[in-house]
């Protein structure tokens, strides 16, 4: 555990030590942004809309006390999704999607000697292959989280009105109660940290794959498992530090 953490730090350092030209890395980053960001919009949208809807319906089910105004439901949906569900669940979904594709892609490149081919050309393969993926993830995760926040609030709105749990006015009133802008900042900070963890852990696992196709599969699985655990630990740590 300690040993692999040390190797992980060395890996991050090697990526930053002998960098390729900026224009090359930038082009690669844009490509990766499309793969990581644009291609994940659909799954993130579906997941977050349903989470908003389910949160709204379940809070409505639990809030039976007539003394509590119905708008509280809207308020709680907002607080839960912005602060926790949107950044964390989105990142966990992306750990599955982006993490496994980074680890699988790099693992395949390693076992088919494409990484060696880069090295022989004198290219720093860690910096060329990994840095753009990490930067792209750190740029795209926050955007996807903003999307997830909006869609879960809309999902809650639709679910609340369609099931008759509360009226649209009450929901909107709840959404606007005691809004703390810092919560959004906090959620975005979380998403950047999670993006780094997911992409760097997946890249580390994939980059040092050895063996064959079986090991590439194992590296992907490991990458997803480890990055989900890392997300949850970091989630707790950030909440303890920043809130």
């Amino acid at each position, binding site marked *: 555990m300690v040993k692999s953490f040390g190797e992980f730090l060395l890996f991050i350092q090697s990526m930053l030590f002998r960098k390729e*030209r900026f224009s*090359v890395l930038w082009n690669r980053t844009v490509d990766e942004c499309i793969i990581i960001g644009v291609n994940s919009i659909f799954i993130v949208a579906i997941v977050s809309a349903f989470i908003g809807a389910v949160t709204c319906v379940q809070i409505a089910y639990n809030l039976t006390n007539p003394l509590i105004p119905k708008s509280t439901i809207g308020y709680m949906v907002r607080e839960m999704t912005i602060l926790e569900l949107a950044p964390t669940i989105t990142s966990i979904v992306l750990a599955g999607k982006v993490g496994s594709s980074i680890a699988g892609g790099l693992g395949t490149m390693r076992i088919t000697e*494409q990484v060696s*081919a880069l*090295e*022989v*050309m*004198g290219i720093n393969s860690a910096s060329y292959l990994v840095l753009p993926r990490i930067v792209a993830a750190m740029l795209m995760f926050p955007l996807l989280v903003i999307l997830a926040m909006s869609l879960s609030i809309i999902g809650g709105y639709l679910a609340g009105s369609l099931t008759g749990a509360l009226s649209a006015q009450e929901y909107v009133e709840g959404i606007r109660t005691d809004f703390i802008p810092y919560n959004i900042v906090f959620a975005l900070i979380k998403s950047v940290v999670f993006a780094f963890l997911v992409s760097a852990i997946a890249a580390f696992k994939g980059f040092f794959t050895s063996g064959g196709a079986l090991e590439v599969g194992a590296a992907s699985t490991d990458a997803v498992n480890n990055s989900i655990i890392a997300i949850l630990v970091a989630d707790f740590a950030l909440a303890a530090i920043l809130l």
Partner: protein
Amino acid sequence: MIEVHNVQKSFDGNQVLRGINCTFETGKCNLLLGGSGTGKSVLLQCIVGLMKPDIGSITFDGTVFTNNKVDIKQEIRRKIGMLFQGSALFDSMTVAENVEFPLKMLMTEMSREERLDRVEFCLKRVGLENAGTKMPSEISGGMKKRVGIARAIAPNCTYLFCDEPNSGLDPLTSIKIDELIHEITHEYGITTVVVTHDMNSVIEIGDHIIFLYKGQKLWDGNKDEILNAKVPELKEFIFSSSLVRAAKKVDDETHGGLAAATTDEAINI
């Protein structure tokens, strides 16, 4: 000329290379011959810098490569082209992009037109002028090797390394690949190192042959000398192939050099 001085390498106490001294000559196809697991690939990886020897050093035309400064190493790396055993084409790029890649990364002074000209030239040189837009997954193993060669020679390499260029190919295709490597070597006067355990290649293109056995160099010489070599391990290795035994017979009967006993004749027997 590439010189290898006393290179040793072990993995967890398993000594794979036991002090190898040899030279690879300029303008020739230098073959690294040996059975499976004798450390040919490991030696090749030590030479191109993918692995670090435990002891010993490698010199490229008088410049020490092992343990030298990063920019000197980088300078040498730019002159190295390598064909990998599995071709190692970048599978997210087309064939033409694969060949253009080293030019884009290493030769920043080249304009886009110059690069495309060079790509076209290299693809033509390996006989694939029409395959530029294909993806690596759409072409055959032999074509992949050709693309690998085109990519290796694109930046005008001075040193060409090939790890088992004809593994997994049918005899005819592998002879063609061998010939291509041989022609390119002589055309551009580069130093070529080919790892092989194929006797066909030895007879076809072995300008200079180095025989490795259990991590040691046991013999070196050229293709005309190899059939008369006295080293028992080498004799066992070459005459395990009945084709070679037949070729040797023809050779002895005609008293010609080995040049007279081409594989074609051997096949006709």
